[in-house]
């Protein structure tokens, strides 16, 4: 399929060049903002960088023809989870001054551990068989994904609704004040 593509036309080549450049741009953005999440001093800045990371991962989903997951990803992560994080950070009034820090020795150790872990991961990928992307794949569309979700994965889908209900009840129970009649 790859060699056919090359023979086909200049337009296809241009298209894949654009795709590759988009991939590099989104990857760079994702990695850079992920690093800034870890290294920024202010927790609010960390959340904002995390939103950038999530948007660039959403862009990757679009490049992979997963439109439905792109929309769900934006709604769930940028819409729900990030708002929750920001609310909690502002509720607890966390800022640069209240931020606890580890000692420099532990920071260096953490960085070395991360680097070694990356070496293990990349080393385990070495020699993997190369695969070719399916052209004009339509499995990521809402229609096809809905068919799979409501046929094969019907029971897990229903159980996940129970999970979300349990999480909601649990969050409310935990957030309630312990002494009756006291609102703090």
């Amino acid at each position: 399929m790859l060699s056919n593509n090359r023979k086909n036309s200049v337009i296809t080549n241009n298209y894949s060049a654009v795709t590759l450049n988009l991939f590099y741009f989104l990857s760079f953005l994702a990695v850079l903002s992920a690093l800034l999440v870890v290294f920024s001093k202010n927790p609010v800045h960390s959340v904002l960088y995390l939103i950038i990371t999530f948007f660039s991962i959403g862009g990757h989903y679009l490049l992979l023809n997963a439109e439905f997951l792109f929309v769900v990803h934006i709604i769930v992560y940028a819409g729900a989870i990030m708002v929750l994080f920001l609310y909690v950070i502002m509720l607890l009034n966390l800022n640069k001054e209240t931020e606890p820090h580890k000692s420099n020795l532990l920071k260096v150790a953490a960085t070395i551990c991360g680097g070694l872990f990356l070496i293990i991961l990349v080393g385990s990928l070495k020699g993997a068989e190369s695969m070719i992307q399916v052209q004009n794949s339509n499995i990521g569309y809402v229609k096809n994904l809905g068919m799979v979700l409501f046929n094969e994965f019907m029971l897990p889908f229903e159980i996940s609704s129970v999970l979300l209900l349990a999480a909601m009840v649990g969050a409310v129970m935990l957030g309630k004040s312990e002494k009756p009649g006291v609102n703090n």
Partner: protein
Amino acid sequence: MIPIEYYLWLSAVLFTIGVMGVLYRRNAIIIFMCIELMLNAVNLVMVAFSNYLNDSSGQVFVFFIMAVAAAEVAVGLAILVVMYRNTKTTDIDILNQLKW
């Protein structure tokens, strides 16, 4: 076309940054964010493989992972708020009462 290795490397890097963040920071909220980062790295690999193998099960699994992540964040942040109410800090090094 983008080779699948690129997606695997990108996910490996993102996952490593998440692991490093968990080891590097002491604020429990930042650690939560790094866990989200790791979940997203795995999601990206799942979507990539589902596209390259032309199998939609991977994308359905990502959908379920998102549901679990949302539940996890809701309960986790509620626990954090309770913890802050008791200790007035989100520093994880304070929480050592269960240490033997």
